[in-house]
């Protein structure tokens, strides 16, 4: 048993909104009486943009892409002194609000863009001991008003003719896959829904998959980089599915890796859905849908 410092939030799901009090406890556990030079607590919100090293075009930006702080608050929780042996619990409470002139965005962990909120606790100690640092991430949700005006079903119809990158449609097997997404703007807390029917397909189908991608755009105006990466891939049809048999499209949006579609001056986070049909011979047909994610109030 050695000296330990721990932070706990009072909400099990660690989810907060702007203006709410982020509360919790710091607990210090020490086997014997111990001296310290004070404990400080800070709430930090940062946006970090990382750029792909290989992307030479954007090299010029990289210098300017330091993490941006959007929320910061720090306090001294405990004055320098001593802790008695045993566990000492210190409750805290911090109001979640943006820095002046900044806006809070939702927590998001992407490849190039990360929006992260932390509670950090630092315990300063005498010269001989290292300072102890403990951080805990919490999740921020930013609901916005959403009127549902974009909420229209998106009907699709995939046939050899609908493909764009094929020169000779004549050589393709005949197929016709119809379906619809129930909307193009999905509420992030609810599953994405829709359905799909293989009306005709002359070749054996191996798999039908849904691929959810994030599209991250860094920079704005002239020099920007846009990268689409997969978040999750879900199979909805396995093997040669029955014809004329509607198959549900159903996907739960993963937490942390998704956030409501976001557009700011310096970066954008958007999402795409790829519907992929893989045939027996490993050829595949893909249809891409832009989808918007919202978190209504």
């Amino acid at each position, binding site marked *: 048993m050695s000296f330990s410092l721990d932070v706990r939030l009072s909400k099990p799901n660690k989810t907060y909104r702007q203006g709410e009090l982020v509360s919790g406890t710091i607990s210090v556990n020490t086997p014997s009486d111990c001296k310290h030079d004070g404990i400080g607590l800070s709430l930090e919100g940062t946006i970090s943009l990382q750029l792909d090293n290989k992307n030479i075009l954007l090299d010029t930006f990289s210098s300017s892409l330091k993490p941006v702080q959007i929320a910061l608050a720090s306090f001294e929780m405990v004055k320098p002194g001593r802790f008695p042996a045993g566990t000492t619990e210190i409750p805290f409470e911090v109001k979640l609000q943006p820095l002046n002139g900044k806006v809070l965005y939702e927590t998001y962990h992407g490849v190039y863009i990360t929006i992260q909120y932390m509670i950090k606790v630092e315990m300063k100690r005498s010269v001989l001991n290292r300072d102890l640092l403990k951080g805990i991430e919490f999740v921020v949700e930013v609901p916005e008003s959403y009127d549902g005006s974009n909420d229209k079903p998106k009907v699709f119809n995939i046939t050899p003719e609908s493909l764009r990158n094929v020169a000779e449609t004549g050589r393709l097997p005949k197929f016709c896959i119809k379906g619809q997404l129930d909307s193009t703007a999905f509420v992030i807390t609810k599953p994405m829904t829709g359905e799909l029917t293989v009306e005709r397909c002359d070749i054996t189908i191996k798999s*039908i998959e849904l691929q959810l991608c994030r599209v991250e755009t860094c920079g704005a105006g002239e020099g920007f980089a846009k990268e689409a990466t997969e978040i999750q891939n879900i199979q909805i049809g396995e093997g040669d599915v029955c014809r004329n*048999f509607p198959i549900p499209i159903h996907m739960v949006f993963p937490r942390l890796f998704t956030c409501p579609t976001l557009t700011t001056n310096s970066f954008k986070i958007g999402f795409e859905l790829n519907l992929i049909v893989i045939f027996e011979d490993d050829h595949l047909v893909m249809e891409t849908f832009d989808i918007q994610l919202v978190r209504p109030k």
Partner: protein
Amino acid sequence: MADHHQWVPKARNYPRERKDYSLERQPTRAHPLSGLQRPTPSSATSKEAVNGGGVSSKTSSASNAKSAARTTGAKSAGFIDPLSMMSADFEPAVVEVRGGGGGKTAAPLTKEQMIGSWGVKKESILSKFTTTERLTLTSSYLSGDDRVVTVTKSNLVADRIQSRLEQLDSFEAGSMKEMLNLTQQEYVNKIDQLHSKLQTAWRDDQRVTALKIAIQLSKLLADISPLQFYPSKFVLVTDVLESFGQLIFDRIAEKGGSPGLGGKEDYNAEAAKETCRNWFFKVASIRELLPRLYIEISIMRCITFLEPRSVFAEMVPRFALMIRGIGDHLVASYARCYLARMVIQLAPEILPKSIVLVEDFVASMQQLGLTKLKRKLTDQKLDMSSYVLLHQPALEWITDCYAKQSGVEGLERLLRMAEDSNYTGLLLNCVMTSFKADLVSRSPMKICALIQKNSEDVFPTYILCRTLGLCLMNADTDPKERKKIMNEIWSLVADQGNPQSYISAAEIWVEFAAKFFTVKEVNRVLGDIISHLLPDRAYESCSAVLLQILERLIKHLRSFSLLLSMDKFMPFIDMLQKEEQRLEAAKLLLDAYTKYHQDSAIDPVIINGVLFASKIVHDSISSLSSEDEKRSASVLVCGFLRRIEFGSDFERQLNFYADCRGAFSNLDDVAEFLVHAVNNLAMSARAIQRGHHTRKTAAFVRACVAFSFITIPSLYDIPAQLALYLESAEVALANQCLGQADALIKAAIQLFNASKEELEVFATKMKPAGKIAAEFASNLLALMLVVPDPPEQGILYLVRGILNTIQSCDELVKRPLQMQLLAYASAARQEDYAYHVEGIDSNDRLYGPDPDFLQELDNIASTCLSELLAAVAVLHNAKQNAQAIKMAHELLDIVLAHGDLTKCQSALAILVGFVKTYDPKTVASLRKLAESRRRTDGTAWECLLELL
């Protein structure tokens, strides 16, 4: 030798004692056992019932002797005791071995029953769907072989590190291993291994590992080859998944979650909910459809931590739709089955929605065109109906679920679906098994028509016929329709080419005919069966079913005259050719005969038939047969013999018994039964003659005794022989056959003398050899009291034989016998004996107060007493005090009961002195006894009081 003690018995006045010591009696109106349904007639109860006028417990050995004499007639086997007569009014309980409904259960079921029925189904699937093909299993959590990781204790650090690293390698989760060429058993073992790995991982808080194992397991279900094994594989894997779901559920509950809303909202409950939510998110992100589906269904129960139960009504249809995404029909069928299983466990209220599952099944199968399917199956070397049968357990379960909540409309709906489908037979069969029999049998003609429509190569018609038969058996259909159906179906059954399938369907319809029609129809059906199975000796391969048919026939045609009146019955039985099957058949027949045979009229044909069957049973017993086999065979044969009554034709009865003795010589119990029966016969003859035999009846009775005399030695069981000798001697005595009685007693004594060393063989824990001997001696001496001395021999010729035998006995056996002898000598010295046999002058009348006779008795008694007292002293000297005290008490009992206390002072003084010193606790009770007795016969007890 110790001092000589003189024994003087007290003079008894039996009639007075009886009056003085017997308890007060009251007449009773109610039969003590009338409340009981089926009292088991046992000799013990009968003894008590007859021996109602017993004497007080004080004269224990005397009462023993009396009861032995009184039960002379009662011990015979044919005796019907008054208690069992009461129960004879009851119809013998018919044990329904097999319900005809084919495992049908009556609704509404409790939750346990619903799940329980899956257990039954599970077993049947596992035993039915097996494969000899080699299997492949892919998993990263199994080491390639079952090598045990042994950590060799090595001093070298390098070695230890090496083995540590190897272990790490073998636990490395990343690498997928494919195990080829597994036998089915190995495969099952591997799945079990994975199951235990999963549970270990779970216990070790390795939740992600547990989930990964679950995913890998459910992936196995995507591989359908070999097809025949798939249903079993499904059962194995889903068992694990189900328990995985339960693990998660329990874990969340443990953390503080409460199913349903309204739980307390504290931090723990919130945290538990969060954990639960995390599980759902985690599972929802599983890439592949099949694992995601299976695990989502498995953890479905956990949703109740987050949402109200009504959410099932949204989830289940979604799963049902998701299953449509599975391309392979078999995989999809079983996924539906799993969903139905969970629904019935978790949300029975939405069962009616399971019609979607049936519809999806039908629609998807419909797309699987017959020609396409055929092409597909040729690769698997499987014919179409076998493939369709693979779907049956899954579909059956789904329709079971559906049937539970939907009535006639549901049935009709499914029947319509069946009619339109390519797979009529499969659906129809599931419908018939799932719905309650009386629902199904409402429109039998319609189903009949559908069966006729069924195409044989898609679904085997015989199964349909069988199932329909099972349904109709338990339902009341219009009798007119029955005949029509029978005709329609039988023509289908008769068309079956394969004898196996033919007989499997015929089995049910024979019973149908037996239950609802007359012998004539059954006979015709049997004839048809014979003509089907005789060619190419086809019956050899279906003998098990033939036995079942026999069983079913007997269930409904209980009368043997009916059975044997069918001219096809014996030829049918003849088709059972193998030894053990004939035996089984014989047992069935016998069992039925003893249970159901009612008419007392003796038909030689029937007797011959049953005798024939009994012989088969008897002949199956050999020296290698176990005790149990022998016992069950004996029970069957005796049961039959007991039924055979020729009324007043005693000669014939005796002849019959003699025949039986020859026929059933292997069975001890039967021989024993025969002796009892013959003794009973002799006693019945005596009863008819009212004790006075004519020349003819006397000869008959002697024949009976002779029968016993030669039958008894053939027994193996010596205690039984001894008992039978005595019983027969009693019978002989009662019938004035003095010579025979003497011979029997002599034989008994000789046998006892010769075999007293072997009694250990028959001793049990409850009945050690000493007790067997004592019991025998007690009965023998009780009988000896009334047996007059044979005129051509000296005084007490037989008793001296006993005396000699006793002298050569082992010490432990000898003492109780001597005590008995003491009691006997006392009783035999009385002027008028306690009991007599009617028509026989016992020694009291034979000798009168002949001094030689009395002297002889006194000598015997005094010797016994002296030796017994000496034995007590020996035991005492050998420091075996417990035994010595026990013996002293026993002896004191005898002395107090039989001795003239005033004249046996010396012995009494020794005994009382001994008891006083070593067992002072009993002195008080002795004193009490003496004081109470002093009132009735004063002086004798004064002596005892003085000593105390």
